[in-house]
């Protein structure tokens, strides 16, 4: 009981300590902290917008890439694959989640980024260069690299939770659909519709993971605090600015601002997780009782 309370209290302790730690910057900048675009440790002025933008863009990009794939995997695992093939595939997808983020980052720097720089980005510039997303020079390091790495990293969580959601839907639904002559895809569509909110929950959990991911992103995003529409340009994210600058934060206001960024990250991920878990819980429970 006592220890269970500790687990429970830990979340509040973290929130309290971070609010206390960021007091200085909260007082000085207020809401302007979120909309300020200048991050200048020399002048002791801090605005977090470039980082917030970077986190949002890279996470959004990751979602766009990972979500359809994850749903495909979930369908494969829960609807199509026989057990002897489902188990090893599940294991492999879970293994993807077990690889440390630093190894993703290492792989990103030495394999993904050079590949993007020499083949993918020149191709994008050549053929889609008129779009604002694909303007600029092929650096390799940038939003696109961060988005791809993040997509690989959040695939496992989205697909395994989606799989559980789809599996929770009773077999009678499938049988009913097939019995009236539906094809496999038509029956799957019905299952997907039934699990819609659960899939949303899975997506939100993945988003929460993407938002807070640090090392891999820091290593490939390019670490430049600029807001640019182009996905090819280097950017920065909330987690990576903390990773880069926290140990070197010299003034009290500087570290307080970084703690405030951590506080924002904390709040965002908590909210995402609470919503997502509630959705996933309610849907798996609903089907379990019926």
């Amino acid at each position, binding site marked *: 009981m006592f220890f269970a309370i500790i687990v429970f209290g*830990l979340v509040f302790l*973290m929130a309290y300590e*971070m609010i206390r730690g960021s007091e200085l910057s909260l007082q000085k900048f207020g809401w302007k902290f979120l909309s300020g675009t200048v991050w200048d440790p020399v002048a002791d002025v801090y605005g977090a917008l470039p980082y917030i933008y970077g986190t949002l863009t890279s996470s959004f990009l990751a979602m766009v890439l990972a979500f359809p794939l994850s749903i495909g995997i979930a369908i494969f695992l829960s609807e199509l694959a026989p057990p002897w093939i489902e188990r090893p595939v599940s294991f*492999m997808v879970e293994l*993807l989640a077990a690889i440390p*983020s*630093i190894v993703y980052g290492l792989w990103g720097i030495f394999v993904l980024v050079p590949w993007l720089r020499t083949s993918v980005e020149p191709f994008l510039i050549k053929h889609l260069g008129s779009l604002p997303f694909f303007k600029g020079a092929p650096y390799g390091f940038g939003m696109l690299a961060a988005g791809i790495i993040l997509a690989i990293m959040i695939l496992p969580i989205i697909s395994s939770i989606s799989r559980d959601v789809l599996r929770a839907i009773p077999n009678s639904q499938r049988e009913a659909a097939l019995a009236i002559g539906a094809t496999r895809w038509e029956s799957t569509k019905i299952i997907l519709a039934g699990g819609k909110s659960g899939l949303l929950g899975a997506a939100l959990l993945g988003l929460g993971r993407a938002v807070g991911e640090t*090392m891999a992103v820091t290593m490939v995003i390019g670490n430049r605090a600029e807001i640019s529409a182009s996905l090819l340009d280097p950017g920065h994210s909330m987690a990576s600015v*903390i990773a880069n600058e926290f140990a070197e934060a010299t003034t009290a206001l500087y570290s307080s601002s970084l703690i405030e960024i951590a506080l924002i990250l904390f709040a965002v991920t908590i909210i995402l*997780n609470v919503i997502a878990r509630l959705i996933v819980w309610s849907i798996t429970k609903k089907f379990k009782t019926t």
Partner: protein
Amino acid sequence: MKKINYEKYHWRKIKSTTMTALSIMSVVIAVIPLFLIFFYTLAQGISALNLDFFIHMPKPVGETGGGMANALMGTAILIGLGCLFGLPVSIFAGIYLAEHGNNTFGQIVRFFTDVLSGIPSIVVGVVAYILVVVPMKQYSALAGGVALGILMIPTATRTTEEMIRLVPHSLREAALAIGLPQWKTTLRIILPTALKGITTGVLLAIARAAGETAPLLFTALGNRFWSTDLGHPMASLTVFIYDYAKAPFEDWNRQAWGAAFVLIVLIFIVNMTFRFVTRGRYGDHQN
């Protein structure tokens, strides 16, 4: 008699097959990066590994060779500290949840454990910084251990709970029926039965903690020298990978791959063991 519209049926069939193919394709696309990462880490890592890597210290900037003996030691110490801070809480909380957790409070705690697992590790690092580094006025292994301990709690708590729940109910009832008090039943009957599962669950949490970098950056910091002093900065494998990957020296990059290889192998073994133990023993109870 109504005629069956074969053309339409044909079209539906094609659509279904296409979607099946797309679904299989997404699995293939997801598995490709897994193999790529394994392949590169294997190929680059093995060539970087030799005895020097394990028993030598890092060489000064510019000199080739040297190893990561201090980082291996550091990671081991940091994990040990993490276990010290994280495991007692998680194991007792897990026991509580499994044995007495079928009420609202248990649900809330379970919920918070899940939420805790979603908190970014860098945020946990910041909290450890505020809690330990600021009062001590120094980066220290201790702070890193606290961060890792907090990060271990969700995984360790939930696996402990699950493993205890897998213990057959009849065993519990038998113990209580012959008059053992609840605490003794838990301590002498349930725990030893679930021990194997709990141990592997704990190993899983350890493997995860061993791969953490972000929370160590400004807690344990990193150290190029041999240090076992808990009150001072300490090296770790992951921070080494980070520093060496960014460095412009080829030899350092090579060593980063070597360290990554060691990590991956460790994690792979632990995951396989976990799979094996949970399936081999309680396979019938799952699903």
